[in-house]
């Protein structure tokens, strides 16, 4: 294997991209909605954490800190996932004809990017709910561009919200 690395030094290999730019036409805002629900759930769980007293024992503090760290990590990841999924649909799927029909879409995407950051930075249930609403609005527009009517289905998640799906 070292021989190959030596050859690479003299004759550099070509770059191969791992990122998916295959124009497959398969797009779905479902994952963005699940991620937004997750951000809301993590925010709720952090908000619900309580200590037994104003000065809890060291063991309890360790447990709470560990729990907050884990919840925050998942919240961060899923807020980023919301942004990623929305960006991909916005950048790769939406065409001029969609923009002409849905003039507010650029502004909505911009607001989702900002709102996801707010939800990341804070433990703010209102902000997380607003993020979810924006993503659902985006999902509604997405399915409309495909000529599909949408329905709001109970998610069945602990967040108790809905998921926007095509009929």
């Amino acid at each position, binding site marked *: 294997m070292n021989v190959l690395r030596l050859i690479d030094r003299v004759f550099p290999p070509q770059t191969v991209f791992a990122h998916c730019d295959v*124009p497959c036409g398969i797009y779905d805002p479902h994952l963005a909605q699940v991620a937004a629900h997750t951000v809301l759930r993590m925010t709720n769980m952090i908000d619900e954490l309580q200590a037994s007293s104003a000065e809890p024992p060291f063991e309890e503090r360790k447990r709470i800190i560990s729990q907050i760290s884990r919840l925050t990590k998942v919240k961060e990841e899923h807020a980023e996932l919301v942004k990623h999924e929305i960006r991909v649909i916005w950048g790769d799927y939406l065409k001029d004809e969609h923009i002409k029909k849905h003039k507010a879409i650029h502004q909505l995407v911009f607001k989702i990017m900002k709102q996801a950051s707010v939800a990341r930075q804070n433990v703010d249930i209102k902000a997380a709910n607003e993020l979810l609403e924006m993503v659902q609005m985006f999902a509604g527009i997405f399915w409309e561009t495909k000529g599909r009517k949408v329905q709001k289905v109970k998610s069945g998640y602990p967040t108790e919200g809905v998921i926007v799906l095509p009929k």
Partner: protein
Amino acid sequence: MRFPFSRFVVSERSMEPVFFEGDHVLTFNWSMPKTGEAVVVRVDGRNLIKRVLKIIGSKFIVEGDNRRVSSRVGSINARQIIGKVILKY
């Protein structure tokens, strides 16, 4: 005729945790890949590293390993396949 082996260096993250950015891979270009094997394919002038999910006739359905980054799959023709990955070095 295509050279039997090609060398590539991986860029971007959609094949993690198997292939990381900066990994070097060697492909064998004289046999068709099977389902589940990693391949280097040529799409729109770009070399992409993907995994074969399904083979339907002469069409290959490929996807990235890291579904967080690569949430989409695509269909390619056999002639777009450069080779299957046989070694990471």
